[in-house]
């Protein structure tokens, strides 16, 4: 592994200290600020998806999600939006054959959604870290902390 990769991992661990103990933590893409965590939860890597909070109406490259309607970042709106794509709330992060799971995160003590991660076919999890890289992590809890707060809920949908 190159020196640069190690430096990037150190930088990420500074923001997500639990990853230091995660032996499955890996960088899985180069830096790319053209897509974000919500797009990546949908397995897309060419768009920036976020609710239209109403403040900025003329930004390029944004896919207001789930529609152009003005919404705040309350996690309930994110749950509803994933509902529209067939996801339903489920109990926990354990891997279930034939299902794809996601986890939604909120800032501590609030319902403000900060992040989404997605379970991979190998049972590990993947996250696009804002404008930065996407990574593999062992469990959805490994990226909890000051940056993304804590896991609020899990959702799943059938996956062929």
């Amino acid at each position: 592994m190159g020196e640069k990769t190690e430096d990037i991992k150190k930088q990420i661990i500074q923001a997500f200290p639990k990853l230091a103990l995660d032996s499955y933590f890996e960088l899985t893409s180069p830096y790319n600020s053209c897509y974000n965590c919500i797009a990546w939860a949908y397995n897309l890597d060419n768009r920036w998806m976020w609710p239209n909070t109403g403040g900025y109406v003329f930004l390029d490259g944004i896919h207001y999600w789930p529609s152009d309607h003005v919404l705040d970042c309350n996690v309930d709106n994110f749950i509803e939006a994933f509902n529209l794509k067939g996801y339903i709330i489920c109990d926990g992060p354990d891997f279930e054959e034939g299902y794809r799971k996601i986890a939604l995160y909120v800032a501590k003590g609030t319902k403000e959604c900060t992040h989404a991660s997605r379970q991979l076919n190998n049972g590990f999890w993947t996250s696009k870290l804002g404008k930065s890289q996407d990574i593999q992590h062992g469990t959805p809890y490994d990226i909890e902390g000051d940056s993304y707060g804590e896991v609020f809920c899990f959702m799943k949908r059938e996956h062929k």
Partner: protein
Amino acid sequence: MQLTKFSAAIKPLTLAVGLFSTANAVAYNSIDDFTGIRTVASNLRTSEYIKSDDRLDQINMLINEHRFRDHLIRWEKRTMFLSSINAIIENEDFQTIVSMGYQAVPLIIREIENHPSTLVWALNLIYKQKITNDPKATISDACKQWVKKLKI
């Protein structure tokens, strides 16, 4: 940008004045030598002034570039892991870049040409418009279109 254009436009006039006074200085050089009036010295000051004006422009450009890069690095670092559009845009350093207005435009263009990124939103805020209304356009597409439109 407007200021730069203005100072560029005024330079030929400054040069003309400088050349005119140089011609006079050559004609009256002997008189000046005799009387001890150092017109040539004043012409040197004129040319020094012209040179210093150029240097001022260059220094201002360097200061702007340094200022821009400073804010860009801090913005990248502080918003690196965020997805929230509001949090990315309302960051203090991003707002400072936007407040630099047209002076920041060539620097933004150079940056997004090499590294397409959400920095393109600074152009949206400076020009108060999108480059494309194509709903399928990605950040990368938008960066290319801004570069095509604004790169000199």
